[in-house]
């Protein structure tokens, strides 16, 4: 796309800039599992033949493959959304002990405001807990430079380095100058049991080494140009990090700033120096009071946000209210209700589940939209894999009328151990894998069961049928969910059976295969205005002013679910192609 345009100014998103920075820094291995808002980092890196990029099975695997590549001597990168870092928490927490050898950068994209996530956790706290340095760019152009710095720091201090973006940085575009890639020779690897085998005694010694390293990193952070004092009017001073810097700068361009780009280990002396120079000191940040608590611990008098601003994303227009000490007035959710696409293969499954009156344990993906009215037939969603584990708990508590659903990508990510657990612990009942052949929610990435790599090349395809059988499922039925009657019959049968059953509801995502069949015909005379067709929540069908139904021709895919559910024959299948 742009790799050859050295010196060119391109409009890059924060994610693309992270990837471009890693590329220029000579990254050799990059691993991730998709997730909004981090997905595009790996998609951008995948275009470069010099970089061994992969969609890993999940974030834990991604982290370990990238870290071990770095230990082996290759500059490596891990990227995920904030909650993905939770899945990688186990290796992350010990990674600071073992260190890296070649540079290893951990990119975390947090989601303040919960644009597309299950929570809005603040991963600055995770960097501190894992005891790894934390870099926080404010914009895409900075993100590129910070990633290059992160690789250098990682090698210099022998530690993983976290670069943290938020949705607002990851998904903002701005002018970014493209640079040349620097090839970094592979670092020599030597077997070192004391450093790389974390048994208690070695780990204890490595903890000692880690604490020493943190002191050195702190001294470095005090001098780092990433922590910058901008002196202006000394009446008002702001300590800020991340995108908050830009919001405050926008609203108070004449104030003084301490912009923290290297915020852990915390540059205490720099903060004291700045505090001495300004009359009134504020700290403004998004989500947790991470900077605020550090500053207060130093005994510095500082004004901070009302705690109501710890919820949700900051916006520039909030800043004056924060400065005035006001509480946040919740803007409320005014955006339109999201909805499954016309022709989505998940829709008929939820229609059938709704009719079955089952309690449905759900998971994360496009299909989570099945929870919203009028379908209203998904009743739990916590984290990836929980569609199956919650099934086990609710089946214990609520009995037979529980069904678990999970997407194909999610099943491979975290559902397999959960399914083994069902079988091992003698749980019976029905799990439905919604197999649309892609990771749709995050923009249609391939996964192991698609048989395609991140570079679009064919690879071994994981057979979901075989996996389910091997995990211990007694019955595995593969059904095209657009055959609603068949699906309904099998669901009914399997719910009641004394067996562990999996139905693989398999039909491609409509965004993947843009096939179009004829738009159903509407026969006005037959319509009794019962509106059952509207209860499938298809954006291509709507009620007109005369109370009759109309289908948006430009949106309809001809999936015929509306024809299937219409009890009076007012909607008729159109055989033309």
């Amino acid at each position, binding site marked *: 796309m742009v790799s050859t345009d050295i010196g060119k100014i391109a409009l890059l998103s924060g994610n693309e800039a992270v990837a471009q920075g890693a590329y220029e820094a000579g990254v050799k291995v990059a691993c991730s599992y998709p997730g909004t808002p981090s997905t595009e980092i790996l998609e951008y890196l995948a275009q470069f033949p010099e970089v061994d990029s992969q969609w890993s099975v999940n974030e834990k695997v991604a982290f370990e493959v990238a870290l071990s590549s770095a230990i082996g001597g290759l500059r490596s990168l891990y990227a995920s959304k904030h909650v993905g870092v939770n899945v990688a928490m186990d290796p992350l927490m010990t990674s600071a002990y073992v260190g890296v050898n070649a540079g290893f950068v951990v990119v975390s994209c947090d989601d303040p405001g919960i*644009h597309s996530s299950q929570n809005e956790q603040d991963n600055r706290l995770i960097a501190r807990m894992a005891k790894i340095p934390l870099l926080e760019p404010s914009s895409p152009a900075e993100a590129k430079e910070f990633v290059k710095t992160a690789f250098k720091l990682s090698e210099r201090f022998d530690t993983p380095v976290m670069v943290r973006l938020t949705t607002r*940085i990851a*998904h*903002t*575009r701005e002018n970014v100058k493209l640079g040349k890639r620097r090839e970094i020779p592979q670092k020599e690897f030597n077997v070192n049991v004391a450093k790389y085998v974390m048994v208690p005694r070695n780990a204890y010694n490595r903890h000692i080494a880690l604490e020493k390293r943190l002191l050195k990193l702190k001294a470095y952070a005090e001098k780092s140009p990433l922590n910058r004092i901008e002196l202006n009017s000394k009446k008002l001073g702001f300590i800020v990090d991340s995108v908050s810097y830009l919001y405050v700068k926008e609203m108070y361009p004449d104030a003084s700033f301490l912009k923290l780009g290297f915020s852990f280990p915390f540059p205490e002396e720099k903060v004291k120096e700045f505090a001495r120079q300004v009359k009134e000191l504020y700290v403004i940040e998004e989500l947790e009071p991470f900077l605020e608590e550090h500053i207060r611990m130093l005994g510095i008098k500082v004004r901070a946000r009302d705690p109501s601003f710890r919820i949700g994303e900051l916006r520039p227009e909030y800043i004056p209210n924060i400065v005035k000490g006001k509480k946040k007035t919740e803007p409320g959710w*005014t*955006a*339109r209700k999201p909805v499954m696409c016309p022709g989505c293969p998940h829709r008929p499954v939820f229609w059938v589940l709704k009719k079955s009156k089952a309690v449905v344990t759900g998971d994360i993906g496009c299909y989570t*939209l099945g929870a919203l009215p009028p379908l209203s037939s998904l009743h739990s969603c916590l984290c990836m894999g929980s569609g199956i584990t919650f099934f086990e708990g609710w089946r214990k508590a609520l009995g037979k009328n529980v069904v678990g659903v999970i997407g194909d990508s999610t099943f491979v990510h975290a559902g397999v151990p959960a399914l083994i657990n069902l079988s091992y612990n003698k749980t019976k009942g029905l799990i439905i894998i919604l197999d649309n052949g892609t990771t749709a929610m995050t923009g249609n990435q391939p996964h192991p069961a698609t048989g395609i790599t991140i570079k679009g090349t064919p690879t071994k395809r994981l057979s979901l049928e075989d996996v389910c059988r091997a995990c211990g499922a007694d019955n595995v039925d593969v059904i095209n969910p657009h055959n609603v009657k068949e699906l309904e019959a099998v669901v009914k049968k399997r719910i009641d059976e004394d067996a562990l059953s999996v139905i693989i509801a398999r039909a491609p995502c409509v965004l993947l295969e843009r096939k179009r069949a004829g738009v159903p015909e509407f026969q006005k005379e037959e319509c009794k205005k019962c509106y059952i067709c509207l209860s499938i929540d298809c954006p291509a069908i709507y009620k007109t002013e005369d109370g009759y139904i109309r289908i948006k021709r*430009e949106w309809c895919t001809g999936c015929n679910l509306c024809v299937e559910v219409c009890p009076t024959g007012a909607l008729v299948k159109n055989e033309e192609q």
Partner: protein
Amino acid sequence: MKNNETINILFCGIGGQGVLKASELCCLAALFDGYHVKKSEVHGMAQRGGSVESHVRFGKLVYSPLIPCGMVDYLLPLHRDEHERLKHFLKHGGIDLLQWLEKAETADKKYLNTYMVGVLSRFLPIKENSWLRALEVAFSHKKYDYNKHLFLRARREVQL
């Protein structure tokens, strides 16, 4: 355009209408004219029918990626409900392009975005050549001629 001035444009509509394409065109054109550009977008989980908004800002140096509420210079809606939802972002004396939406709908429902960008272009200090370059980059070879035609038609039809 004054030295430290930033021009703020809010694009809004629903998934599938090409809101992001419209804002991309504007950003590219501003980029080609040598401005510092920031574009930030909010789109929920849905591919079809969800709310989509895109903030575009350009000038000599732009700070916030979001336009502060009440500071929008130009509001470019592709959908009336979304216009209703976001019109309070417009500043006093800001320009609401809603009045051209109907014209865009008669021109071509499928490319409301291109027509509306043509309208917008009349108000902005960006050279026509940069707009045409932006169209060339943003559209495939097949679609370029038609979109250029639509863009220029809108540009002609706007009476300032």
